[in-house]
């Protein structure tokens, strides 16, 4: 088969076709892993060096933070929430004080500017470097913004029962913002939009299906529909056991689902069998234990297993079960990529 560019490879998989080989990319790659495998490299250099098929850019990384206490790593995010960075995790800080504590706060609330040009600087640089060669993916996360910045998780979840109209108001507030942001990202040249708000835990959905359908999925469907109107695929990420949510994800029109969380007991073969004709299946290589502490042989075996179960006929992107976080062994990640390239060539030789 003719060798495809990384962009073509990803797009074929996303459109449920068979590329020249199983593609790979990661939602996040910790800088410690990058430094260990390619000392001194910035993210984009690393993507080229490892020949990763897509570069992923995060909404949260484009936020502007006002530093409130440098020593304690406490900041105010662009939404007005007070947060704390742990200093060791991926740059997603924990909420200390939400932006909207009452209905009065909501009345006075002023959204950040989705058109702020600096927000798109990295995407524009990525477009210059990768456009037409590697897929440029931008992430958005409206429900996570509502939960982790505007209202706070516990209050938001309780609002769903005690004051659902309040949650509706927050949802509608954010829809305008995200509509604009997604438009700007596509205008700037992204190839794919990836929605990354976690909506499930290890044992199942965070909130009941009736709440998912009312407060979460309508906004997601708007984003998917808009992306499709511009010819851009839209993918969904959520950790956790998502069997109960798969039909909602399909109905919303998403093109792919990540990461088929192995820690939550998600079986990639079952996901492929049940949803492989509707969704690109992405992920499932365990990064909790295997990539952190497993042997290279175990990593190869798992990659082979994932490709065997989900690679047939295309429509699979081999990725970790969440991200390449700071505890992942750099050697194991390199081994994972080697194994994908070795065993992922179409036609697949794995029985």
């Amino acid at each position, binding site marked *: 088969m003719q060798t495809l560019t990384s962009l073509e490879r990803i797009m074929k998989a996303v459109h449920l076709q068979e590329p020249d080989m199983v593609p790979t990319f990661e939602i996040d790659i910790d800088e410690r892993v990058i430094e260990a495998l390619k000392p001194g490299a910035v993210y984009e250099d690393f993507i080229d060096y490892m020949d990763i098929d897509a570069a992923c850019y995060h909404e949260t990384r484009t936020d502007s933070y006002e530093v409130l206490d440098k020593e304690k790593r406490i900041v105010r995010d662009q939404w007005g929430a007070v947060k*704390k960075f*742990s*200093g*060791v*995790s991926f740059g997603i*800080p*924990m909420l200390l004080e939400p932006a909207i504590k009452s209905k009065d706060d909501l009345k006075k609330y002023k959204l950040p500017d989705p058109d702020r040009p600096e927000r798109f600087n990295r995407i524009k640089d990525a477009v210059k470097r990768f456009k037409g060669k590697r897929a440029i993916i931008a992430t958005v996360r409206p429900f996570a913004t509502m939960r982790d910045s505007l209202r706070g*998780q*516990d209050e938001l*979840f*309780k609002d*769903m*029962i*005690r004051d659902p109209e309040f949650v509706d108001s927050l949802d509608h507030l954010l829809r305008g913002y995200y509509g604009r942001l997604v438009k700007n990202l596509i205008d700037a040249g992204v190839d794919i939009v990836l929605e990354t708000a976690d909506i499930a*835990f*290890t*044992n*199942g*959905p*965070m*909130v*009941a299906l009736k*709440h998912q359908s009312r407060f979460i999925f309508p906004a997601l469907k708007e984003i998917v529909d808009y992306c499709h109107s511009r010819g851009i695929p839209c993918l969904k990420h959520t950790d956790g056991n998502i069997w*109960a949510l798969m039909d909602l994800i399909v109905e919303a029109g998403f093109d792919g689902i990540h990461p088929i969380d192995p*820690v*939550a007991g998600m079986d990639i073969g079952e996901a492929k069998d049940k949803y492989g004709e509707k969704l690109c299946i992405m992920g499932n290589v365990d*990064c*909790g*234990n295997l990539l*952190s502490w497993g042997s290279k042989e175990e990593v190869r075996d798992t990659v082979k297993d994932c490709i065997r179960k989900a690679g047939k006929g295309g429509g699979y992107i081999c990725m970790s079960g969440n991200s390449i*976080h*700071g*505890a*992942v062994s750099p050697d194991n990640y390199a081994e994972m990529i080697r194994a994908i390239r070795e065993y992922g060539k179409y036609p697949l030789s794995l029985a």
Partner: protein
Amino acid sequence: MFNLDELTNSVVDGQVAKAVETTQKALSAQVPAKEILDNGLLPAMNRVGSDFESGEIFLPELLMAGDAMKASIELLKPELTSKGATYAGKCVIGTVEGDLHDIGKNIVILMLEGNGWEVTDLGIDVPPQRFCDEIKKGSYDIVGLSSLLTFTMPKMPETINILKEAGLRDKVKVIVGGVPLNQSFADQIGADAYARDAVEAVVKARELVNK
């Protein structure tokens, strides 16, 4: 005999005002606080815990039930504390250093409190020394260590080692929990127990203090 079913149901349904009203009624009827806890709240939290575990209810319902339970416990506290050792045990809990996740930990706290435990929550991003300092201060039965991120798991053995160095390891039982953990990790680091979820945390805590 006062029927505590109404209290149980109001907590299960997350009705804070009704839980408060029913608790007040029971106290006015001279029902001992310990009996209200054991026969009103404990069955409620056990039901909520098992419904959550089986996917019949979700976080919003669990949190509302937790609020109702806490409101009721607040009313019981004066009597419970004045009569001495009525708690099932005393637990200090926190998410280990570098980790900012607290959903799982908070559910464990809810379940422990609903089962009559006195719980001190150290919050998130808790350095090993902070656990040690707290254990020095109070007479805890259990220390609960939570972690969601693989790369913060090493903080658990670090915490256990600091407890050993401070001569406190034998005074407190260590339970660990969190998505990336398993029993073999707990064994490897010398924890006393691994709890897969909040319901199991309560069971393990009870077993450890009854040993």
